[in-house]
């Protein structure tokens, strides 16, 4: 855990808020999947909240973020409206994408969340391209892109790292290394144990951090973002984490030992951060409770907003094909 000095009460509160919001949001999503209010292929990242919360906490509103297929967390951490997000997952007209995108294709342009992707690795080059524009804007904007350990075996990943390095672009690659791609462990996908070593090959400054330690994530992200903002080029963060649930909502995840899941439950990033907050008295018990309660209320309100939003009408099918 980062030293207490790194975190003041305000920051702790913000991080806790984000983490609670993501956690409760995704638990609510899981419920709504169960009742078929949310259709489709939905990937939640319960257990991985510290990554999005920590990294995005150092971003400005005019920075940009791209996600993977597991993209609710970074969208929320970047400030997406929960109601419009939930409505999108429920395929409603009030969703960010008017019900046309869905869980893997969240776009919340108003807050700079530029998109998730259904294709593993698919947003990596987009992030590089957006970073090229940010560099030219000269306003210190940066782009952050999230992807899993499984994406690091895709050609697009390597091409994207090379381009970012070559052109010295303000893009931060955030690898959410949760040790699995679908049903198989990382060791079945590559002999490369530290995915950050790919960045080293391209001379991209990189750090591997405990991805369940929100303070550590935040600190590492802060360094990378500072470098990128200052024109120092790309950064790479490998966050070691774990998804406590299945690959998609509904996946019984029998391919993992219960003991393994149990070990990681003990490292639940939210619980760990709550302990840190208590240990260092960053917030009072009342404050902590209020954060959770408010998050719960906001998530519930979002669910209500979503379910109150009408589904799109058939005549919407053919709009937005061409601009």
């Amino acid at each position, binding site marked *: 855990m980062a030293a207490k000095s790194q975190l003041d009460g305000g920051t702790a509160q913000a991080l806790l808020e984000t983490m609670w919001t993501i956690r409760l949001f995704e638990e609510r999503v899981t419920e709504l999947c169960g009742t078929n209010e949310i*259709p*489709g292929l939905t990937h939640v990242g319960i257990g991985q909240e510290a990554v999005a919360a920590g990294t995005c906490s150092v971003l400005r509103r005019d920075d940009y973020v791209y996600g993977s297929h597991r993209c609710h967390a970074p969208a929320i951490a970047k400030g997406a409206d929960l109601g419009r997000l939930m409505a999108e997952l429920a395929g409603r007209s009030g969703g960010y994408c008017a019900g*046309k995108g*869905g869980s893997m294709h969240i776009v919340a342009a108003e807050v700079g969340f530029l998109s998730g992707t*259904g294709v593993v690795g698919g947003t990596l080059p987009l992030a590089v391209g957006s970073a090229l524009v940010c560099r030219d804007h000269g306003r210190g904007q940066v782009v952050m892109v999230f992807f899993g350990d499984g994406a690091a075996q*895709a*050609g697009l990943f390597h091409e994207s790292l090379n381009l970012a390095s070559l052109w010295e672009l303000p893009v931060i690659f955030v690898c959410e290394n949760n040790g699995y791609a679908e*049903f198989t462990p990382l060791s079945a996908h590559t002999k490369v144990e530290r995915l950050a070593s790919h960045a080293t090959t391209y001379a991209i400054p990189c750090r591997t951090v405990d991805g369940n330690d929100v303070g550590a994530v935040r600190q590492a992200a802060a360094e990378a973002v500072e470098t990128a903002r200052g024109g120092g080029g790309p950064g790479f963060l490998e966050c070691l984490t774990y998804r406590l649930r299945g690959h998609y909502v509904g996946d019984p995840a029998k391919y993992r030992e219960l003991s393994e899941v149990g070990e990681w439950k003990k490292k639940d990033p939210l619980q760990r951060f709550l302990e840190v907050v208590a240990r260092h008295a960053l917030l009072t018990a009342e404050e902590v409770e209020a954060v959770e309660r408010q998050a719960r209320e906001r998530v519930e309100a979002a669910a209500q907003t979503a379910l109150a939003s009408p*589904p799109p009408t058939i005549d919407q*099918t053919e709009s937005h094909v061409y601009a």
Partner: protein
Amino acid sequence: MPEAAQRELTFLAAITAALKEEMARDAAVMVLGEDVAVGGPFGATRGLAEEFGTARVVNTPISEGAVMGVAVGAAVLGRRPVVEIMFIDFITLAMDQLVNQAAKLHYMSGGQLRVPLVVRTQCGATGSYAAQHSQCLEAWFLHVPGVKVVMPATPADARGLLKAAIRDDNPVLFIEQRGLYWSKGAVEEGEAGIVPLGRAAIRRGGEDVTVVALASMVSEALSAAGQLAEEGISAEVIDPRSLHPLDLETIAESVKKTHRLLIVHEAVAQGGVGAEVAMQAQLAAFNYLDAPVRRLGAPFTPVPYSPVLERGYVPNAAAIVATVQQLMRE
């Protein structure tokens, strides 16, 4: 000849059966793809690794491009790889290796190399998988000399065509429509059940109009034909099963009898297989046609996520009925 044994199988189980049987029959057959050794997301390869080992049932990283090439490199040395591309949407990452290498090596080498390769993949808009997990892209591959394209509609054909594809000495793109996976049907066992590529099946005889339907559209067409029969319109339903080679003869014969043709597929109409079948059919049977050839496909849009939109997006029996009615008036 003793009557061939039959089993009731799901489409998915028929796929698994074909893979098992061919792997048992020929040690050259191997399976590669993401998570195939643990059955894959839909269970199509379940049990194979246990039976044939992980040297023949190979899990791969998320590297569709190179994995396709690996299969080609194994095929030219005599293997018969069956590569799984989890969703046809991701074949976009392997187009170079499939189109530039697999499809052309036999030709470019003047016949020195052969590429006996099957690419299994699934497609279709169902379950709100959204725009990047729902496409139907079979039409692209009709335009690629060197590749064969197969799209079964029934469990029996799933097994029979997959076995034929594996034994074929060319790259065969074997497209499974996800919506069919849990449909059931009688499947003949043994060699008798093999379905040679390039032969259409007449699913229902009829006199007034020919409906050529692909994959999941076959059952929609059959249910449309049932409704049309009540109105006194007799529709013949043809399932081409393999798109290249295409059994134009069966289609043309039918059109010469019915004088009207509708082609139905789930893929977006524009640039789809319907256009190609229409082209060939009107050329073969122009003088018999009493009306323009019609086609029915998805609208020209990416696949929408919302269930409401998705349902409206995929052609169905009602749309087939309406189109046939229109066709009969022409």
